[in-house]
């Protein structure tokens, strides 16, 4: 059964359709990343699912419950971490968390204990009673995330959760999300940071202009755009062309030459043909071309995304 389900979801603001018939399903215990340009309707979709906004058409269910019909039952099962930190800035970090824990109906003791745990988890344990007003953007963000995790929710909505966080903070958040998912939580995540989607998401859904323009696993999306590529740096730049020619013969596609730090970099698209990597390496070895560096890297989701929503605006539907 799907933990999150949207069918033909429509939302208009002043005649303009922000969501224009969105269908999406997120399986229980999985992570789905909602991607799309600024203003594509991602936040609106999350706010509808989190019962903050009513849709103008279509249906949305969270944990099997219609969000319009029984919002309170939905609220008991969700956690929301919105784009703007929503915490009381007169109070301190701990006071905030105790308040939210109390509103999740934890007892006084339990609320305080939970607050302390969360503070330690997001690295704010040392802030004492300092009012949140004096926090930096990153600290506020961490507090906001802690506030969304008071109880492990059945479904967690994360709206650009790591915006403004440093790489270490980002990894902390990812770890926290993974731990929740391991415990059975379903996560719907929006992000502008595609590595985040690659790291966390089982499924990716790209929104553009209020519609779903692509959907699939990160692997499927990247495969639809292009396969892996093999990047080699040959020790002797003079033999780069030779290496490229060899690679072309073996892999069957035209490699690209580009100068690298010490030698010459050859980029060989390998279109996921099994054995191509081994064949290229073997052929080079036989020809006596020494390889300094060799990296096989998949086409990134970035590249796939840019193709899907990017400059050419060519919309490619990817079969799910």
């Amino acid at each position: 059964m799907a933990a999150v389900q949207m069918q033909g979801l429509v939302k208009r603001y002043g005649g303009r359709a922000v969501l224009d018939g969105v269908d999406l399903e997120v399986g229980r215990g999985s992570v789905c990343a909602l991607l799309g340009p600024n203003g594509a309707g991602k936040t609106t979709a999350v706010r509808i699912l989190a019962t903050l906004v009513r849709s103008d058409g279509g249906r949305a269910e969270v944990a099997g419950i219609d969000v319009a019909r029984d919002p309170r039952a939905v609220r008991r099962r969700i956690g929301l971490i919105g784009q703007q930190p929503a915490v009381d800035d007169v109070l301190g970090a701990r006071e905030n968390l105790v308040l939210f824990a109390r509103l999740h109906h934890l007892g006084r003791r339990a609320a305080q204990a939970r607050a302390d745990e969360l503070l330690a988890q997001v690295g704010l344990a040392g802030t004492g009673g300092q009012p949140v007003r004096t926090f930096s953007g990153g600290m506020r963000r961490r507090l906001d995330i802690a506030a969304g995790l008071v109880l492990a929710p059945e479904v967690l909505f994360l709206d650009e959760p790591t915006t403004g966080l440093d790489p270490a903070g980002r990894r902390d958040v990812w770890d926290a999300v993974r731990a929740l998912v391991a415990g059975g939580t379903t996560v719907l995540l929006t992000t502008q940071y595609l590595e985040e989607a690659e790291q966390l998401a089982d499924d990716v859904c790209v929104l553009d202009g209020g519609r779903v323009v692509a959907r699939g696993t990160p692997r499927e999306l990247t495969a639809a755009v292009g396969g892996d590529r093999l990047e080699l740096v040959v020790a002797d730049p003079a033999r780069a062309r030779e290496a490229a020619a060899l690679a072309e013969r073996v892999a069957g596609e035209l490699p690209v030459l580009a100068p690298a730090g010490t030698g010459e970099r050859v980029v060989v698209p390998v279109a996921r043909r099994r054995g191509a990597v081994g064949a290229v390496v073997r052929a080079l070895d036989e020809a006596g071309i020494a390889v300094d560096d060799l990296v096989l890297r998949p086409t990134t989701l970035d590249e796939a995304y840019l193709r899907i929503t990017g400059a050419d605006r060519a919309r490619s539907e990817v079969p799910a």
Partner: protein
Amino acid sequence: MTALRTREPLAGRLRWAVADAFAVAGRDLAHWRRQPAAVLVGALFPVLLLLMFTYLLGGGMAVPGGGDYRDFLVPGMLALAMVFGVEATMTAVVTDTARGITDRFRSLPMAPSAVVAGRCLADLASSAVGLAVLIVAALAIGWRPAGVAPALAAVGLLLLLRVAFLWIGVYLGLLARDPSMVVAVQVLVWPFAFLSNAFVAASAMPGWLSAVAEWNPVAGTVTAVRELFGSPVGTGGGWATEHAALLAVGWPLVLTVVFAALAVRRFQGLSR
């Protein structure tokens, strides 16, 4: 998939609604602890006004039907202090909405009523403190209530008035997009205050204005509280003055019902 509705027993839900309301109110009380100056200024402003009016108008103002102007003014000021509370409520609501706290509450499994009930509790508590300060100040300049029991009844009526203005504040707070609207309300509260019997007896005003002042939502409370405190009432006046006690209960109830309904509608409108 059929929606599974979990029905908690009513008693349990009620208990949580109360607990949630206290948790929300507790947050405001924590604000007091952190910003005592703001609370102090709020409480002292009506005191300042009381002293100023007593001092300024005390000599020249004759109270129709006799009596000391100071004794006439104190109940009026007490009622106006409740009216001024509208600004505090509005500011709190606007700020919470602007900061996303309202949305945070709306996404929590708490009782939706607790957001407002908590606001109610906290604001009533702060108004009660304000009343106490103002009464002490009035006692200090020589005003004396008639007895303890009627005085308590008067305080009850005043807080009832505060409830009405609380709802007006909640509604206006939800209506306002940014804090600059609060200034507008702060300024417009004054004409409202002058158009009542708080400073001048309604009977001392010219024709149509006298009627307006008599039917002002505060007027019933002011007159009833004057009677309860045994302060001069300012004679004359029509039906409205005769039935002050009725209006003192009726007006706040009507206002509460109307503005609570508007506020709830507006609150639900947030999800548009």
